[in-house]
C-alpha cells in the first residue's frame, strides 16, 4: 500500500472529492494546512502598515490505497486539482507497511 498526500487549493476540494468518488476510492483524511512555495504570499494591512504573509491556506489530503491503484488516483487528483496557476500544489506518494481497520481489526488492503 501507499499513502498519497496531496497539498491542494481549498477551492478544489469538491472537484477532487468527485474525482475520487468516480474511482470508488473508499476514504480520505483532510487537514487544513498552510503552505509556502513559489506562490506569492498574501499582503495583510494593519493600521496602515502592510506586510506579507508567506504561508497561504491549503488543504492536505491523505489517501491510502493499494499500490496498484496509486497511479490512477494520483492522476485523478492532479487533473481535478489543477487550475494552471502557481500554487496548485503537489502530490507525494509514500510507502505504507501496514493498515488496520480499527472497527474490525482487518489488516492490509482489506482495511482501506
Amino acid at each position: 500500500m501507499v499513502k498519497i498526500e496531496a497539498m491542494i487549493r481549498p477551492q478544489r476540494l469538491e472537484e477532487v472529492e468527485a474525482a475520487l468518488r468516480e474511482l470508488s476510492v473508499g476514504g480520505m483524511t483532510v487537514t487544513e494546512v498552510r503552505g509556502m512555495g513559489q506562490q506569492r504570499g498574501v499582503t495583510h494591512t494593519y493600521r496602515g502598515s502592510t506586510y506579507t504573509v508567506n504561508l497561504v491556506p491549503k488543504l492536505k489530503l491523505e489517501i491510502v490505497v493499494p499500490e496498484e491503484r496509486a497511479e490512477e488516483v494520483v492522476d485523478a487528483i492532479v487533473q481535478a486539482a489543477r487550475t494552471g496557476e502557481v500554487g496548485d500544489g503537489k502530490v507525494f506518494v509514500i510507502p505504507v507497511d501496514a493498515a488496520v481497520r480499527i472497527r474490525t481489526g482487518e489488516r492490509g488492503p482489506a482495511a482501506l
Partner: protein
Amino acid sequence: MAAFRFGLALAGLTLCSPALAQGGIDKADTAWIAVSTILVLLMTPALALFYAGMVRRQNVLSTMLHSFMLMGIGSIVWLGLGFTLAFGKSNGWLGGFEHVLGQNLSGSAPYGSQTIPSLLFFLFQMMFAVITPALISGAVAERMKFGAYVVFVTLWLLLVYSPVAGWVWNSDGWLFKLGTLDFAGGTVVHLASGVAALAASVALGRRRALSHGEPILPNNLTMTLLGAGLLWIGWIGFNAGSALAIDGISMVAFTATQIGAAPGMLGWLVCEKVRTGKPTALGAASGLVAGLVGVTPAAGFVTASGGLAIGFLAGVACCIAVTWKNRLGYDDALDVVGVHGVGGALGAVLTGVFASPLANPAVNDALAKGRASLILTQAIGVVTVGVYSFLLTLGILKVVGALAGGLRAEAEAEDTGLDLALHGESGYNL
C-alpha cells in the same frame, strides 16, 4: 411614525403632560426619544453581527463593513440632503431644501407640532436612514466590489429611501394623505429594502461557490444570535420610539413589539420542526427578526393579541419564503427578500387587518371607510413602494456598474474571499 404621529397625536392615548414646557418641548419625551435614537443606532452594528455570522469566514469583515459604512455615509448624507428631501416642506413627492446641511434644526424648538427638539427628530430619523440601506447588503454579500457598494448605497439613500420616507411619513406625503398606516417602517424600511435586495440579487448574479457546489456554511452563528438579540433590543426603540413621545401609544407599540418578536421566533421554529424535524438556532434568530419586521408597521395600532398574530404569521411565512430563492435561482445571500421583503409586505397588509381602535383611537379615522378600504390602502402602499424601489434600484445599479466597471469583485477575489482580496485583512487568526 414621524409626521404620521402629528396627524394622530390629538386623538392618541397621550399621557397627560404637565411637563410640556414653553416652546412645546417636553423633557421626558425628549429623554425617551434620545434613548430610542441610541437604540436604533445600535441596530446597525447588530445587523453587522447578524449578517456577518452567516457568511463564510473569508468574507466576515467585508460583510460587517457593509453595515458599518452606512453609519459613516448614511449620517453625512442624511445631514447633507436626505433629511430635507424626506421631511422638508413637501409637494407630496419630495421635500424642499430648507434643511440642507442641518439648517433650521434646533436643540430647543420642535419640528412641527412635536414635543421634542427638531434636532432630535432629525437624529432619530437619521438612524432609520442609516440602517435601511444596510439591510440590502445581505443580498450582495460575498461578491460585490467595495467602491461600487459605497456609491450604490449613497444613491439609493437619496433616490429611494428619502423620497419614500417622505411619501409615507411627511404630513404632506401622498401616501400619508392617502391614509397608509406605517407606524415604524414596514413599507418605508423593510419592504423598500427587501425589494431592492431582490433587484440587487438579480443584477449581481449568483456567487461562484454556488456553481461549484461548495458548501456555504455560516462561519459563526453565535455572532448571528448575538446580532439578533441586539436587534430585538434596538427594535424597541425603533417601534416604541416612533410614537415620538413617552405616551400611551409608545406603551402599546412596546408591547406589540415584544409580543410580535416572541411568536415570530416560535413560528419559525415550528415551521422548521415540521419541515426538517430540527428546530435551529439560526431559525430562532431569523424568526424573531421576521416577527419584528412583521409587527413594525402595526406596532402602535394593534393590541397585544394583534401583535401576537402578526408575529406568528410573519415567522411562518418568512420561514417558507426563504426557500423560494433555491427554486427561482436568484442568489439573495442572506435572505433579505425572504425576511424583509416578505415580512414587510405581509406586515403592512396585516396592519390593515389588525389595526384596532382599542390600541389607538386614531385607528377610528383610518377605518372610517371600512376595513376593506384600509386593507386596500395598505396594499396600494406596498405595491407602489415595491415597484418604485425595484425599478430605481435596478437603474442605480446599472449606472453604478457602468461607472465602476462592473458590480462584482474579480473572480479571484471572490474565491480568495473579499476580506483579504479587497481589504487586505482576515477576520480571524485563531
